[in-house]
């Protein structure tokens, strides 16, 4: 069996950041296992710009952002195994993987970082009725076909879901000569950023049909059209609003799910709301020495935040390996459970050690659009930190940072993150 100090599973932005940060913190033998033929994860196919604004202060494209980290991985002599699929990990940190050169490999790891990212929801997850013709793709698959493989998936396109990937693909397909007929969004508000609504839809006069969904799919060999309908406030289609839209391609941009098959097999505790592992402020999962970062924990909005999350995992994996300092924190631990309160859907990390040595930033997503609200962190029946927000939407993660002094003084073992003085707009 091979041995390594740190095995990083996944070579996207989270995995590369974790590996680089661990190496910089003195971890000698770091291996990245990546199933694709190149590092970068989803970034190489995200050829649009806007990445890196927070981290580098400039607007990079996805491939450029990836390139900066690939260079760092090379400079630090981090071992990278491409075209390698991880089959299994155990609680005692044995990683089993396979590729066509080495065959089956087993690696005994001092620590593991999970950075497998997430996967798109498909037609099957939505249960859209109708026939099963070709021409129905997830937006990310279409993006790969257009930007990497050099194929156009179709000519007349309907997009379901107004998340950022769907909006980006509306522009991309239009630039490459397709006619994008409309983007349908089930919710009464768009899922993606304003900037993408303006620059991807309005620039090309593509209609955005809010409160609409696809209720039927037509065509035998190839998609011939879809039936769309208005939905009521519960998201149910309204019967007499059906409308046929002719198209040969349907792109689905209807959400992402963290990819945690191997985490589940290793009995790592998974949060039902985020579909990712429970993590503490060190990005450590319920299994000691196994860390998780990026979109495998929860779906981030910005790659800059994924990278920062990867740094946390890498730094703490290094600390775990070197000093077992994680253990001393835990030994005297006053473990605080972090919970979502009113107006908040989920909070990360779910656990914080009251005696942790650094300030802790709690990231969370709200459950609707709110204007002029206070974000509050509560413990021991009082507000310990509050931040005013003019607007907060489910499309953008919010965060609140608690100092180590605040954490140390908490006695009840719980922190709640919530919104107060709610004035809900729209729904």
């Amino acid at each position: 069996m091979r041995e390594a100090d740190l095995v990083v599973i996944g070579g996207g932005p989270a995995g590369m950041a974790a590996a680089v940060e661990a190496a910089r913190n003195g971890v000698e033998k770091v291996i990245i296992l990546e199933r694709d033929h190149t590092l970068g994860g989803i970034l190489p196919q995200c050829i649009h710009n806007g990445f890196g604004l927070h981290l580098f202060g400039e607007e990079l494209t996805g491939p450029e952002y990836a390139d900066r980290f690939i260079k760092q991985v090379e400079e630090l002599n981090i071992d990278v195994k491409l075209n390698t699929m991880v089959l299994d990990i155990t609680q005692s940190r044995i990683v089993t993987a396979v590729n066509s050169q080495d065959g089956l490999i087993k690696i005994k790891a001092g620590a593991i970082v999970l950075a497998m990212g997430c996967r798109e929801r498909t037609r099957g997850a939505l249960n859209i009725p109708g026939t099963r013709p070709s021409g129905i793709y997830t937006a990310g698959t279409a993006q790969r076909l257009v930007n990497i493989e050099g194929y156009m998936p179709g000519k007349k396109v309907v997009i379901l879901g107004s998340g950022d990937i769907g909006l980006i693909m509306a522009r991309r397909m239009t630039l490459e000569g397709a006619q994008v007929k409309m983007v349908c969004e089930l919710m009464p508000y768009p899922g993606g950023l304003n900037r993408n609504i303006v620059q991807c839809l309005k620039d090309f006069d593509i209609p955005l049909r809010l409160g609409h969904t696809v209720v039927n799919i037509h065509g035998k060999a190839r998609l011939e059209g879809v039936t769309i309908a208005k939905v009521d406030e519960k998201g149910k289609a309204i019967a007499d609003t059906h409308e046929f839209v002719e198209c040969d391609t349907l792109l689905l941009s209807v959400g992402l799910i963290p990819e945690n098959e191997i985490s589940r097999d290793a009995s790592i505790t998974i949060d039902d709301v985020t579909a990712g592992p429970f993590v503490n402020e060190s990005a450590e999962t319920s299994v000691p020495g196994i860390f998780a970062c990026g979109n495998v924990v929860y779906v981030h909005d910005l790659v800059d935040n994924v990278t920062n999350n990867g740094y946390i995992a890498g730094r703490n994996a290094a600390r775990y390996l070197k000093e077992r300092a994680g253990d001393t924190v835990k030994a005297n631990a006053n473990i605080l459970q972090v919970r979502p309160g009113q107006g908040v859907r989920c909070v990360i990390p779910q656990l914080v050690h009251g005696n942790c040595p650094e300030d802790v930033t709690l990231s969370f997503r709200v459950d609707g659009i709110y204007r002029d609200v206070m974000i509050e962190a509560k413990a021991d029946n009082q507000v310990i930190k509050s931040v005013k927000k003019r607007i907060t939407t489910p499309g953008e993660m919010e965060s609140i940072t608690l100092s180590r002094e605040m954490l140390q003084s908490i006695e009840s073992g719980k922190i709640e993150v919530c919104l107060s003085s709610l004035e809900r707009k729209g729904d």
Partner: protein
Amino acid sequence: MSKNTELTCIVCPLGCKLSVLQGEDDSIIEISGHSCKRGLSYAQTECINPERVITTTVRIRGGQMPLVSVKTDKPIPKTLMMKCMKIINRIEVMVPVKVGDTILENILETGANLVATGNAT
């Protein structure tokens, strides 16, 4: 005759609805609906000279993959986007290509160069 343009501000998540009143010579008479200075300047640029960076791909010859990603190194006038795409889609380059390589200089006399954003071997 004056004209009125409705815009959504993209500066922050508030997404203010901006209204811009322009005179016959396109000079701005009045901007309303913004709630900050940044919104005001967004409305000015967007009405007088809207510009966009194009990000797309060009074909490559001799590579493992058929395409390499490219961008204009400066924003170009919004109205020239489709015209630029026609030119870009006729380009074919030989490998190797590195991030930052210039693929085409001064596209459509805009002063912007087309540069590679990816690597191809």
